[in-house]
């Protein structure tokens, strides 16, 4: 995992659009406490904006009535929330034990050398973004790479090259 603590602020106020607003009000009734809405509200934000700006974290905290620090914790803990705009192709590489032992670092190093992106970064042309994530649950076929939500198992640098070549 990269350090996700540096949030990106747009400088513009954030609020849910009408559709997400209604969805928020619908979902909030399903939970015993309003704090339970932290994760769904972050998803709604990402659906709406494609990522989660700093302003949205403050907005969600105030809307739920909880501490901004608590929403900040959840948003930085779960790597599926994008805390800055991602590239056209978002690559996640598992960094947990099995993938580490089976060579995930070679893939990470290749991406750093070939495309010039480290975990947490977006390539200059906006084509790729990279994140190192915690266990994706495919330990038996490690190392695993997730591209735009799709899993690719038993990966190595050669297979990754072919995979990237086919991406827009």
């Amino acid at each position, binding site marked *: *995992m*990269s*350090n*996700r*603590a540096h*949030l990106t*602020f747009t400088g513009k106020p954030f609020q849910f659009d009408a559709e997400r607003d209604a969805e928020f009000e619908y979902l909030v009734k399903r939970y015993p406490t309003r704090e339970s809405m932290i994760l769904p509200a972050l998803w709604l934000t990402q659906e709406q904006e494609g990522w989660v700006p*700093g302003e949205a*974290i*403050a907005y969600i*905290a105030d809307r739920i009535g*909880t*501490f*901004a*620090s*608590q*929403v*900040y*914790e959840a948003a*930085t*803990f779960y790597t599926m929330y994008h805390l800055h705009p991602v590239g056209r192709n978002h690559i996640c590489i598992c960094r947990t034990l099995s993938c580490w032992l089976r060579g995930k670092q070679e893939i990470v190093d290749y991406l750093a050398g070939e495309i010039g992106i480290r975990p947490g970064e977006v390539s200059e042309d906006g084509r790729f973004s990279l994140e190192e994530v*915690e266990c994706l649950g495919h330990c038996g076929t490690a190392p695993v790479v997730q591209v735009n939500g799709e899993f690719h198992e038993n990966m190595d640098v050669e297979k990754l090259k072919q995979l990237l070549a086919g991406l827009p």
Partner: protein
Amino acid sequence: MAETVKLFVNGQEVEVESGKNLIDALKVVGIEIPHFCYHPALGADGNCRMCLVGIEDGRPPLVPACKTPVSEGLKVQLDAEKIRKIQHDVMELELINHPIDCPVCDQAGECALQDYYMTYDHQASRMRVPQVVKEKKLDFGCGVVHDQERCVLCARCVRFTRLITKTGELGIVNRSDEARVTVFPGRQLDNRYALNVVDLCPVGAMTSRDFRFKQRAWFLKRSPSICHGCSMGCNIFIDHNREKGGDDLIYRFRPRHNALVNGYFICDEGRLTYHQENEGRLATAMVDGKDSPLDQAIEMARRKLENARKPVFLLSPNCSLEQMLAIRALAESRKARLSGFSDAYIKNGDGDGWLIQDDKSANRAGLELLGIDTAREGFAQALEDADLLVNFNSMRIVPAAAELAGKIAGLTTIAISSHNGPLTRQAAVALPVSSYSEYGGMVINTNHILQRFAPAVIKNQPAPDMLDLLRQLGCTLTERTDLGKAMQQAIPALAGTDMSAFPAEGLNLKEKETDHVTA
């Protein structure tokens, strides 16, 4: 002690208080179980795993002591090989990314990580990969400076802001080896108790901007005392030191636990009042605005008092009970009118219903108990035909009584004062006197808890004690034993109490004395 249970620690039978967890109960009998995250005020979080112990009754091999209540016959294992291994391993994990910067860290000397390393770890690092680099010198607001690399992620600070102040400014962001304590951008620490996180931090991650780099912890003498910042009378440690060639100076106040008064914490404002004990002090006696030898000034004051026909005494609501009794006795013998007028010490609406009180004086309840008038009318009336005002260290008159200021300025004044101020400068005679960090005595807090405190600081050139000055001015009630008797007369709850057995946590004057006096 309340109800007790007998249990076995490493095969040895010990008797401890029931209803507590293993850490707290065994600590009382001198058995330390190492821990980072547990704190009695914040509860058992169980995240640090440093307090794992063995219980020989078939439950899982190791359990956290912070979450294990004591019970009759419990067989606790603290020295088994597997426990030493766990402690060793936890320490190794904690130190993987720690900067090991003890030589420049404020916490050195009072750091759990440092102490536990010496006790449980003592190994060279096996790490051959670069450390995770985190941020340092983060300004969290309220004078709290954070070093993410020294943090052990025990979450005491986070729990303090969520459970105690309920302001929730702090959180742990990211996960795994990137996890770190931080504030949400633009929502820094913003509460009046924030500096408590510095005391709560078991390591050097939370430091106080006011204290950092000023003094090494092991040079500080820790003297128990009572904060005089407001009428709560929070229990504190005065941490002070005399550097070679310098004077005995206070470097910080820290909270001292007292369940009857302040629990584990103090407010930031009170904590920082130590500056006033070091600074702005009246150093020399003055006659008509010029420095004077002390004995000459005292003689001058004594004569002025003797010759006065209508003297008025004004005393500070911060005076100790002993001082108040002596001043009252001198007022009676000199036929002086006595006032404890001190409205300017009260900051209406400032209190928060917890520790911070409106009344910024330490012993107003003492004034009331001794029947000393605090009304403005009484003071104003007494001033009308007065020919001498003797001010016993009341530092704040003017803001609440601007129209009295003119009257006071026209009067011959003797200021017996621990600090410099307009009142000492305009006095005919100004006599320096010690302040509460330098004398001992008793004060009564806003909830009628009578507390005793002892001298902490000994200056190179100590200012005279108020009671000594009073004796030299002709007061006959200044001896400790006499004052003790006078106090027992004034306070019915103290009658018959052996003062040498005065309870450390103080005495609730609203309750029966028998509840507190130990046999």
